[in-house]
């Protein structure tokens, strides 16, 4: 559980834009990604790389910082790793991941860089975004390809495009139906591999209502967080992913009842007429852990 940290929001900042880079971390996102991939034009890939490198080396950030490199099959991917690993990002985000081999390849490169730079081995992690049916088929393989893996994400727009359809708003129950199955499969793969699942960006800045619905849906599906590109989305996403006072209270009571039952050696545990079994206890612990990390709950002695 040690490598797990709060990643309710993962915010992107275009890597060639100093104004965005130096301000990305002030809005309270749990994780920030400096992007040298899709938000940077081909002509400026070299510029962006230098800027991100220097930003990582010179500035202090209050949260985790990842770098989204170009895929290693592009002319820039390996160079991105070569340039940027010495700047010690917290993780590398690989877009359009399709196989475990890619991850193992990157893992080796990171290991070598950590050695050469004297970084603690294993300190640089990997996050992968799945954006195609092939990637989805290999999701578990990708998620478990390296101990550096911390999360897999779904890249909604690209995924929908690869299905030769478009990302739709859908209805409040299923969201965009084209992503329905893909989202769940990502969660299955992530959970089996013991890592986090991150949902994709919601790009309509003006439609707050659909955003809230989509976040609620993906939380229900089991995602740990959602990517965003605009600070305005951060509060909304946090609100959905952060346990409410009611949920915290309930979790607390579940754990108390459980503790009592253990102490008294009673067989069946009940709360408010409902039977409490192990999955519920584990869930309650998780709720309190998230609430504590989010700063809305003061952890007492461990139960």
């Amino acid at each position, binding site marked *: 559980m040690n490598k797990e940290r709060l990643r309710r929001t993962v915010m992107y900042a275009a890597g060639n834009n*100093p104004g965005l880079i130096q301000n990305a971390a002030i809005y309270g996102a749990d994780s920030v990604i400096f992007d040298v991939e899709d938000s940077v034009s*081909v002509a400026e*890939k*070299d*510029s962006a790389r*230098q*800027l991100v*490198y*220097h930003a990582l080396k010179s500035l202090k950030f209050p949260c985790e910082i990842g770098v989204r490199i170009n895929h290693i099959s592009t002319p*820039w991917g390996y160079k991105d790793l070569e340039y940027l690993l010495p700047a010690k990002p917290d993780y590398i985000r690989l877009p359009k991941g399709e196989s475990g081999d890619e991850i193992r390849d990157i893992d080796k490169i990171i290991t070598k860089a950590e050695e050469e730079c004297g970084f603690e081995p294993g300190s640089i992690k990997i996050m992968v975004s799945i954006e195609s049916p092939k990637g989805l088929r290999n999701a578990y393989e990708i998620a478990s390809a390296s101990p550096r893996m911390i999360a897999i994400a779904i890249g909604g727009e690209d995924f929908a495009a690869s299905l030769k359809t478009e990302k739709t708003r859908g209805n409040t129950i299923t969201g965009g139906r084209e992503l329905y199955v893909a989202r769940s499969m990502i969660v299955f793969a992530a959970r089996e591999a013991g890592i986090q699942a991150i949902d994709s960006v919601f790009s309509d800045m003006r439609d707050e209502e659909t955003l809230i619905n989509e976040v609620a849906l993906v939380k229900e599906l089991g995602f740990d967080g959602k990517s965003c590109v605009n600070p305005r989305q951060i509060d909304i996403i946090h609100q959905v992913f952060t346990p409410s006072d009611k949920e915290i209270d309930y979790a607390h009571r579940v754990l108390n009842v459980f503790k009592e039952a253990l102490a008294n050696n009673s067989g069946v545990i009940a709360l408010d007429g409902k039977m409490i079994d192990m999955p519920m206890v584990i869930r309650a612990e998780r709720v309190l852990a998230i609430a504590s990390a989010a700063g809305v709950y003061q952890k007492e002695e461990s139960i």
Partner: protein
Amino acid sequence: MAKLLTAAQAGTVESSDILIMLAPAQAGTGIQVELVSPTLQQYGEHIKNLIVKTVASQGIQDAIIHANEKGALDYTIEARVKTAIQRALGERGF
């Protein structure tokens, strides 16, 4: 020691950025910097020195630089200068 092959530029005049325009110069010119900045009094000296230091650290001894900055922090200045140099050395990274 490296020799610049061509003129090159990097960066933009957007807020928080700096536009670096770099041109090769005859041996013995040294590193000359012309700076346009909204905070010339407060940071002019510092920025010019930073540009010279960065150019020198890349092994360049002679260059003419025109810089137009819009509130760029040091890390941005260093990055843009290095990118301009790489481009002037004929390396584009792709």
